C-alpha cells in the first residue's frame, strides 16, 4: 500500500523536474546505473512489443513453453534489479529519474494493454467452440474427452502463446512500475538528511492534490518516512480532510507509526459515519495498547449489532488479548470490568512485570485459557528482547495454528536469534505455509539461517534420505523450490483440509447462531457480501474432500439417490442455505464464472422476500460450463459498485467469498502468482476481505491460501 502511495505521489511530481534536487549530491555510479535501468526497464522485451507466434516449429513443445517462461521471468528480474540498483544511489537526481520513469511506465502500459485485449479476444473466439466441444463430450459420456484434434490444438496453442507474450508485456510494465515506486521510498531513505527538500515538495503536492486517491496515497507513503515531521503532517491532514478514503489511509498511516498523539483521534473515529473510516480506526487501535483500548473497542462492539465492523472489532479484540469471549455485546465490557486491571499488567511499561506475566500465561493450564493465542497476542507489540524470547520459548511447547502463524511472523523479526528460533520451531508444522515462507526468507538469509532452513525442510520431509537438497546452499534450495513448489503444495494439501486451511472451525456455541449464515462453514458476518463461485464443468465431478484417508474431515453426505453429491450440488446447497439465512436488508451479490463471469441482477442487491426467491431460483437454474476464468471473475468482483461499473446501485461489497475447484484455464492472466498480484493492486486502500474455499483434490492450495491470507480472509479446503 505504501508502495502504491509513493507511486501516485511520485506521479504527481512528473513534470516538476528538479523538485528533489534542491541539494546537490553527485554519485559517480549514477550515469551508468541510469543507463542500465533505461535499457533494461524501459524497453518492452522484443517478443512482447509485437507478440508473434514462434516460427518454423511443428508444434509448441513443452520445453519451448518452459524455456520461454523462464526467459520472460529473467527479463523482468533484470529490469527490476536495474531499478533497485538505481534507487540505492545517493545521487540527488535519482528521485527525479525514478519519478520520470513512472511516466514511461504509464506509456508502456498504454501500449501493452490493447494488444493483450486483442489477443484474448482472438484466442477466446477460437477457444470457445473448442471448450464447447469438450463440454458436449463430457455431458454425453460423463468423462473427459481423451482425444484432441491436433490441428485445432495447435492453432489454439499458437494463439495462447501470443496471448502469453502480450500478458507478459503488461505484467512487465506493472512490475517495473511497482519496483519504481518501491525505489522511490527506498531512495527517500538513502537520501537521509538531504531528504528535507524532497519531503517539503512532496507534502505540498501530496496534500494539495485534487484527486482524493492521490491524497490517500500520499498518506500511506508518509507512513514509512522517519521523523516527527511526517507525524505532524498526517495529524494535520486527519484534522482537515473530508474524504473518507483519504481519512482511512491517514488513520492507517498514523496507527502504523504508533503516533501517540493520534490515539484520541482514532477513538473519536470509531464512530465515524463512514464504514471504511471505522474499519481503519478499529484496525489501527490494535497498535495502541493502553487502558482505554479494550474498553473503547468493547463499547463500540455493543453499538455494532451486525456486519463487517462487528467482525473486525472481534478480530481486533482477539488480536489484542488472544481471548474469544462469548458473542454477546455486554460480555467484553463485563470481562474488562472484572479482569481489566489484571490484564493490563501484560502491557506494563516495566519489562520485568511483563516477563512475569508471560511466564504466568505460559504456566496456565491449557484447559483454562488459550495459551498460544494469548501469548501470540503479546508478541507484535513487545520490544524487549528478553520478554520476546520468553514468549517464544513458552509458545513453542504448544502446537497450534496460532503458534504456527506467530512463528511465521517471527521470520521477519529484526533479531536474528528470534528468526532462527522461529525457523527451527517451524519444523514441527507440516503446513504448506512453512516451506513457502521459509523459501521467501531463503532469498535474503545468511549462512546460519540457511542451515536452519535446510534442516527444517529436511525434518519436514522425513530426513536426509528423503529430502533431495544435500547442502544448505541458497541456489540448491531455490532450485528445489522452483521445481517442487506445486508438488509441495499438493503434498501438504493431501494431509487434510483442516490441517492446511486457515479457516475457523465453528464452535458448537456458534453453530446455532451461524447455522444458516455460513458458507462452506465460514460465517457470513458482513452485510455487504459477494459470492464468487466457480461453475466450471469440473464442478460436475463428485465432491470429495481433499486429504488422505483418515485425515480428511469426511466427504459430504451422499445425495438422496445414495450417489455421492457432485461439487456443483454442494455449491448450490451452500448458496441456497446462505441465501435463505441472510437477513433482510443485507446487501449481497452473486458472480458465477466459468468461461467468463456472469453477474446476477444489478451487482449488489438489497435482500428482501422477493429478491431471495429470485436469487434462489437463479442458483437452481445455474448451468456449468467448461473453462475456469479466475482473473476476469475477480476483476469483475472488484469492479462491482465502483464508478467504473454500471452495476453500482447498491455500492461495492466489503467481503468476498470466492469458491474454486481448479487452476485458471482462461482469462487475461493464467499464472496464479500474477492473478494474486493484480488482486493486491486492486485491493489497495479498499480492504475488501476475501475468504477462499478450495474445493476438491485439484484446487491450487498455494493460490487459494495466499489469496485469502493476503486479503484478510480465511481459506478453507472442502
Amino acid at each position: 500500500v505504501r508502495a502504491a502511495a509513493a507511486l501516485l505521489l511520485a506521479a504527481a511530481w512528473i513534470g516538476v523536474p528538479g523538485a528533489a534536487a534542491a541539494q546537490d549530491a553527485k554519485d559517480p555510479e549514477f550515469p551508468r546505473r541510469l543507463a542500465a535501468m533505461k535499457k533494461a526497464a524501459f524497453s518492452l522485451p522484443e517478443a512482447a512489443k509485437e507478440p508473434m507466434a514462434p516460427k518454423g516449429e511443428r508444434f509448441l513443445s513443452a520445453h519451448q513453453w518452459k524455456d520461454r517462461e523462464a526467459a520472460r521471468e529473467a527479463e523482468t528480474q533484470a529490469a527490476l534489479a536495474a531499478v533497485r540498483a538505481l534507487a540505492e544511489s545517493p545521487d540527488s537526481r535519482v528521485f527525479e529519474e525514478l519519478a520520470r520513469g513512472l511516466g514511461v511506465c504509464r506509456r508502456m502500459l498504454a501500449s501493452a494493454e490493447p494488444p493483450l485485449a486483442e489477443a484474448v479476444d482472438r484466442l477466446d473466439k477460437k477457444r470457445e467452440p473448442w471448450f464447447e466441444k469438450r463440454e458436449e463430450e463430457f455431458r454425453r459420456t460423463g468423462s473427459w474427452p481423451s482425444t484432441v484434434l491436433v490441428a485445432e490444438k495447435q492453432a489454439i496453442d499458437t494463439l495462447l502463446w501470443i496471448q502469453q507474450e502480450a500478458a507478459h508485456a503488461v505484467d512487465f510494465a506493472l512490475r517495473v512500475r511497482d519496483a519504481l515506486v518501491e525505489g522511490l521510498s527506498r531512495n527517500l531513505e538513502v537520501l537521509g538528511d538531504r531528504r528535507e527538500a524532497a519531503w517539503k515538495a512532496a507534502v505540498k503536492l501530496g496534500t494539495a492534490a485534487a484527486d482524493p486517491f492521490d491524497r490517500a496515497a500520499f498518506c500511506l507513503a508518509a507512513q514509512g518516512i522517519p521523523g516527527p515531521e511526517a507525524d505532524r503532517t498526517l495529524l494535520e491532514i486527519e484534522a482537515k480532510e473530508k474524504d473518507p478514503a483519504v481519512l482511512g489511509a491517514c488513520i492507517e498511516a498514523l496507527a502504523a507509526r504508533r503516533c501517540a498523539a493520534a490515539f484520541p483521534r482514532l477513538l473519536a473515529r470509531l464512530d465515524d459515519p463512514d464504514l471504511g473510516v471505522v474499519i481503519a480506526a478499529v484496525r489501527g487501535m490494535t497498535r495502541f495498547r493502553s487502558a482505554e483500548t479494550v474498553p473503547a473497542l468493547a463499547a463500540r462492539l455493543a453499538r455494532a449489532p451486525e456486519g463487517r465492523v462487528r467482525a473486525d472489532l472481534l478480530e481486533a479484540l482477539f488480536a489484542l488479548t488472544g481471548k474469544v469471549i462469548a458473542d454477546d455485546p455486554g460480555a467484553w465490557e463485563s470481562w474488562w470490568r472484572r479482569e481489566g486491571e489484571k490484564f493490563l499488567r501484560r502491557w506494563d511499561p516495566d519489562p520485568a512485570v511483563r516477563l512475569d506475566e508471560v511466564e504466568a500465561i505460559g504456566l496456565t493450564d491449557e484447559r483454562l485459557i488459550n495459551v498460544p493465542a494469548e501469548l501470540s497476542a503479546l508478541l507484535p507489540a513487545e520490544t524487549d528482547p528478553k520478554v520476546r524470547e520468553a514468549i517464544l520459548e513458552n509458545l513453542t511447547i504448544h502446537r497450534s495454528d496460532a503458534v504456527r502463524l506467530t512463528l511465521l511472523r517471527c521470520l521477519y523479526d529484526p533479531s536474528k536469534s528470534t528468526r532462527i528460533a522461529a525457523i527451527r520451531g517451524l519444523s514441527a508444522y507440516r503446513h504448506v505455509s512453512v516451506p513457502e515462507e521459509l523459501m521467501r526468507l531463503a532469498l535474503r538469509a545468511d549462512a546460519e539461517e540457511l542451515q536452519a532452513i535446510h534442516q527444517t525442510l529436511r525434518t519436514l520431509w522425513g530426513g536426509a534420505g528423503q529430502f533431495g537438497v544435500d547442502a544448505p546452499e541458497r541456489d540448491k534450495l531455490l532450485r528445489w523450490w522452483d521445481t517442487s513448489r506445486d508438488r509441495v503444495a499438493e503434498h501438504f494439501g493431501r494431509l487434510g483440509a483442516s490441517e492446511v486451511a486457515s479457516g475457523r472451525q465453528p464452535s458448537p456455541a456458534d453453530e446455532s447462531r451461524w447455522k444458516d449464515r455460513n458458507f462452506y462453514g465460514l460465517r457470513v458476518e458482513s452485510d455487504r457480501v459477494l459470492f464468487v463461485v466457480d461453475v466450471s464443468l469440473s464442478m460436475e465431478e463428485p465432491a470429495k474432500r481433499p486429504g488422505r484417508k483418515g485425515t480428511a474431515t469426511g466427504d459430504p453426505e451422499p445425495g438422496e439417490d445414495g450417489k455421492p453429491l457432485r461439487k456443483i450440488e454442494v455449491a448450490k446447497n451452500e448458496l441456497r442455505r446462505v441465501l435463505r439465512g441472510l437477513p433482510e436488508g443485507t446487501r449481497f451479490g452473486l458472480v458465477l464464472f466459468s468461461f467468463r463471469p456472469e453477474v446476477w441482477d444489478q451487482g449488489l442487491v438489497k435482500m428482501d422476500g422477493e429478491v431471495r426467491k429470485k436469487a434462489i431460483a437463479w442458483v437452481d437454474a445455474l448451468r456449468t460450463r467448461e473453462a475456469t476464468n479466475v482473473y476476469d471473475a475477480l476483476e469483475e468482483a472488484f469492479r462491482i459498485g465502483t464508478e467504473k461499473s454500471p452495476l453500482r446501485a447498491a455500492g461495492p461489497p466489503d467481503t468476498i467469498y470466492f469458491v474454486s475447484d481448479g487452476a485458471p484455464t482462461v482469462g487475461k492472466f493464467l499464472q496464479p502468482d500474477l492473478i494474486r498480484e493484480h488482486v493486491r493492486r486492486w485491493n489497495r486502500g479498499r480492504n475488501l476481505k476475501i475468504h477462499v474455499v478450495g474445493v476438491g483434490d485439484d484446487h491450487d492450495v498455494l493460490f487459494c491460501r495466499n489469496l485469502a491470507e493476503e486479503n484478510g480472509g480465511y481459506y478453507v479446503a472442502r
Partner: protein
Amino acid sequence: MRVRTPLSRAAATAALAFALLLPAGGGEARAGDDRRPVPGADRPLGVPAGGLDRVRLSDGRVISCRAEERRGAKEVLLHFPTFTATVPRERVLEVRRFADYDPEPRTDEERAQAAKGFVRFGGRWVPKEAAEKSVRDEEAAAKRFRDEDEFHAKWENRWKVETDHFLVEANLRRDAVDHYAALLESFYDFFTKAFQIRLTARERKQKLPVFLFRRRDEFRQFHDRDTGGKSENLLGYFVPAIGQERLVFYDLPGSREETVDVMFHEGTHFILHLAEPKVLVSRWIHEGCAEYFGASGFDGKRFTPGLVQDGRLLHFQDMIARGKVLPMEVLLRAGNPYSEAEGPVEFEGEHYAQAWTLVHYLMEGRKGRYRQGFISFLQKHLDRKGKLTALAGSEQKFMDYDESRAQLLRCLGIKDFDGLLKEVEEYALALPLRSARAYVERGLERYFDRRDPEGARADFDTAIEKGRDDPALLAMAASNFQLVPERSSESVALFRRSLELDPLDAGVRHRLARLLPPAEALAELEIAIQVDPDHGPSLGDFAWATYLTGVRDRTRAADDEVEAVRRAIAIARRAVAIDPSAEAHHALACLCLTVGEFEAARDAAKVAVEFDAESAYHQWTLAESYALLGQADEFARVLRRIELLLRREARRGEGGEGGEGGTATGLDPAAALEAVNEEMAGLVRRIAERCLAWEKRSEASAALDAWYERRLPKSADDWTFFSEVVRGAGNAKRARKIAEDGLKAFPDSAPLKEALRAAAGGEGEDAPPAPGESPK
C-alpha cells in the same frame, strides 16, 4: 491392498497421453522422490587422506580405507581402523593406491627418501613435486567432472543424443544417457521383430523425441505443462498425437532397472503407435502389452520379455480375493477413448492389473497356446483387416467393442470369455512373484489387512529364502519385521546377515544399532562412521551411545573417560554440522556437560529445544546447563516448562486431554499431580547434585533458590537438601531459616532438625568458599 490415489480430474484430461501410473501402493515408497545422494560420490577419487586408499565401488560410493587385493582371490579386503570388510571383487571398480603417499614421512626409509626429495607414490619413489602435481591433477579432474555434471544437470544444458530411431534429450550424466539410448534402440529392434511390425517409410524416417529427466520434480513440472494434467503417481508417458509423438520419463532415483521398465513400457506404446499411427489400438492391449514388455530382462544381447510385474500381479490377486475381477466387457471398453455411446471408463489401477495379467496369460499361459492368436488379433488392428470405425473429426480409426470382442474370440478360438477369465484367474493365483520384496509386501498385507498370519508367515519365509543373498531385501525385511510381533525378534539377525553380505552399508548398520543395547550399538556405529564418515544419523547416535556407555555416573567424566568423551564430542560436532537435528544437538549437549563445557552445552541444548520444544529431555539438558552456568532465573524458567510438559503428559494419561498417543496410567488426577511433583523434586535435586559434583556450590544454591522462590519444597527430604545446599554455599543464616521453615511443615523430621543444628552451628563462621570461587 492399499488403494491407489484416484486419477485426478486433471490427469484424466491429460489422457491423450499413455501414462504409466505406479502400481497400487507404490506411491508411498516413492513419495520422497528427490534423488538421494550416493554417500561419498562427490569426493575426489585421488586425494590422499591420512595415507589411505580411495576405493570406488560399483554403486558409485567412494570410501577411504586400505584395500588389500590378494592374487587369485575373489574378494577384496577393505581394512578400516577397527574392522575389515570383505567384498566381492566385482563390487570394487577402482582402487587408488595412495596409501603409500603420505605427505608426512613416518618411517626411516621415508625420511631418508624425503631428504632426497622423494616420496612413495603409486608403489614407486617419485619426486614429491611430481606426486603433488598428480594429486592436484586428480583434484582438478574431479572438479571438472563435477562442474560438467552440474552444468548438464540443468535442463537448458541437456544432452541431445541421436540414435537410429530416437532423439534423446536428457540432463543425466552422459554415460547414463548413452546407456538408455542404446537400450531403447535394442528394444526397438527386438519389439518390431517380435510382433512382426513393419513400419512405413515415413515412420521409419521420423525420429521420436525422448525427454529423460534427472529428477522427478523436473519431470512433473514438464508433464504438467506439457499435458495440462497432474502427475502425482506418474512414472512416464507417451503422447501418440500424429507428428507430435514424444516419450517422456525420468531416471528413478537409485534404480536404473525400474527406469528401464518404464522406458520399455512407454517404448512399447510408441512402437505400437508407430506401427499404424492412424489406428487407435484399444487401451487394454496397449497397456497390457506395454506392461508385458516393460518387464523385460536384457543381458546385453537377448531380451527376455514377460517377466512378472509383481505390483500388477499382487493387485490382480487381491481383486480375485475380493471378488472384484472385472468382466471382460468392462476391460475391453475401459479407457477406450473412441467408443461413442457407452461412455468410456477411465483406465485405473485395476484395469492395468487385469490387462497385464490377461496379456501375460495370452502370451505365456498354457505353453503359449493363445500366443499366435493374440498376435494375429493385434495384427487385425495394424494391418487394418479388422473392421475399423472412423473417429469423428479425426483421421484416426478404432475398433469398436462388438468388433473387437468378435475378433478376439475368433483369433483365440474360444466361444466366450467366461472360461478364459477363469483360466486367467487360476493362472494368476499360481504365478509366482518375481521379487522377494513383493513377498514381503504381500506378507505385510496379509498380516495387517487380511488378518491372515498363516499366509503372511509363508510369504515372509519365501521372501527370506528367495532374498537370502540380497542385502537390501534382508534389511528391508528386518525393518518391516519390527512391525510384526511374531517376527520382530528376527530383525537383528536379518540386519546382521544383510551386513555380512554388504558390510559397507552405513545406513543398515545404523538401523541395526538402534535395536541393540548401547554398548553393542556403539561398536556397530563405530564401524558405520568408519565406512561412511558423513553419515549424519550414525554420527549423532555414536555420540549419544558414547554418552550412555562412556560416562559411568552420567554427571562428570572420570579421567579415564575424558578422552573417549572428547572424541565423541568431536563426532557430535560433525553430526550437527551434517545433520543438525534435535537429537544430535542433545547428544552434543549431554557430552559437553560431562566434561565441563557448559556454555557449549547450553548452546547445543538451546538448539535442540528450538527444534523440538516439546521434549522434556531436551529441556532438562538445557536446565542443567543453565544451572551449571549460574543462570538461575533461566534455569527456573526452563524447569517450570518441564513441569508443564510433565503435567500435560500426566493429563493425557488420565485421558483428560484427549491427546493422541497418551498411555493411560490409571492414575487419578491428584495422584498424577503428586507423581509430577515428586518427579520435579527428584529432577531439581539431581541437577543440584550435578552442580555439587562440579563443586559449583553457589550455583546449586542459586538454582534451588530460584526454583523454590515461587513454591515450597514438598517433603522433609527436600527441605533438608535445600537447607544443606544453601549452607554449603556459605549462607548459614539463610540455611537456618530454610530449616526452620521446613520444620514448620514437618515438625518431626529428624534430618531437618539436624540440618537446623548444622546451620545454627555454622552461623557466624560461614563455610569457607569452594576453591576458585568467591562467596556470593
